[in-house]
């Protein structure tokens, strides 16, 4: 089944157009990034708030989002009433809200392949759009796989354009070979895979392997898809493994930011 959802349908995107929030594409830094870490710093500089409205304060919300980019507040509600919720604001303006129960469910996404249909995908996709450009902290590999699959899924559905994927170590590609074989064989995507050369995968048709020894390639997990013929589907994930199995980073639908990450990767590590 083919499902498409353009970024313009999200409340956040329209809030941006109406002048509410920040515009990463217009931030003064201008993506003068010289390392992958610079992209993280730029996104960190924009600050939003998450307000948790609930009878008891759930610590897991604050635990999952970085305090430097997002301030997490709690406002108490009387006990034993309707379920609590979370409001995302930027510059004091409402961007979106989600029920606490739904948020909790979404933070434990199922693992799936890009071409599998997901009856439960709407929730995950909604969160993906809600938290666009929000710094996350201490996400584990499984939680990030949900976001990674969202990007592979978009690339799969659009079928054109460039997808760049950093696995940290090329051996991490081993369990994903089937995914990339199909992406290479069944789409017109230009696919680049990066990683430290601890294992040399067999050649995958239409997939260019970049064995790189730069330290950032070993510490960052990333995916960047330029949207191909549908630029509104551009998206990227950039996550730094700061301690074993604890990732810190962001994902974004900002076309300019995705373009800057793509440009950085191709100029630094070759086309």
């Amino acid at each position: 089944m083919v499902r498409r959802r353009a970024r313009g349908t999200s409340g956040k995107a329209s809030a941006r157009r109406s002048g509410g929030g920040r515009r990463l594409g217009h931030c003064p830094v201008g993506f003068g990034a010289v390392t992958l870490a610079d992209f993280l710093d730029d996104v960190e500089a924009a600050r939003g708030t998450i307000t948790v409205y609930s009878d008891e304060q759930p610590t897991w919300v604050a635990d999952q989002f970085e305090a430097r980019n997002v301030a997490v507040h709690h406002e108490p509600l009387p006990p034993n009433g309707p379920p609590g919720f979370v409001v995302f604001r930027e510059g004091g303006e409402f961007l979106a809200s989600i029920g606490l129960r739904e948020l909790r469910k979404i933070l434990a996404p199922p693992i799936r392949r890009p071409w599998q249909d997901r009856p439960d995908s709407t929730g995950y996709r909604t969160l993906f759009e809600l938290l666009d450009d929000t710094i996350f902290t201490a996400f584990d590999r499984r939680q990030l796989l949900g976001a990674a699959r969202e990007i592979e899924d978009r690339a799969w559905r659009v079928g054109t354009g460039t997808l760049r994927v950093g696995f940290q170590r090329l051996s991490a590609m081993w369990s994903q070979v089937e995914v990339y074989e199909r992406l290479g064989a069944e789409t017109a995507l230009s696919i680049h895979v990066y990683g430290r050369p601890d294992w040399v995968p067999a050649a995958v048709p239409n997939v260019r392997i970049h064995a790189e020894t730069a330290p950032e390639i070993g510490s960052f997990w990333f995916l960047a898809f330029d949207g191909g013929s549908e630029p509104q589907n551009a998206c990227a994930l950039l996550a730094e493994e700061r301690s074993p199995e604890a990732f810190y980073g962001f994902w974004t639908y900002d076309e300019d930011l995705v373009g800057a990450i793509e440009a950085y990767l191709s100029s630094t590590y070759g086309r």
Partner: protein
Amino acid sequence: MPSDGNSLDGLPLLDVDDEVFLALADQSRRMALYYLRIRDRVDVETLADVVTGWSAAGRHGTATRADRDRLLTALRVRHLPLLAAAGLVDYDRTAGTVAVERLAEPVRTLLDAAYAWEGDRNAVD
């Protein structure tokens, strides 16, 4: 009147006039009252954020900026004037703020019962 409404037993409902029942018949207005009861004066924009998020949490879960803007308009043109006419809130249109009025005992009991009922209805099964 429900005969099994334990929490409403002994409540002099005849002392509650129809305007109040009409005011409480709408979920957005009930949510607004629940929130106002635990806060001092609130600005209408903040109230719209809360009522939007809280109402959605029990249903499809998420709400967008457009949902919130629609609710803000509905609060201003419909819900708050109606709550004010029923004597439940003090709505200052000029300042864009609202506060709950001192509620009569039967109305407080009715709101407590409605709050508990909406909590039970959404309890995790």
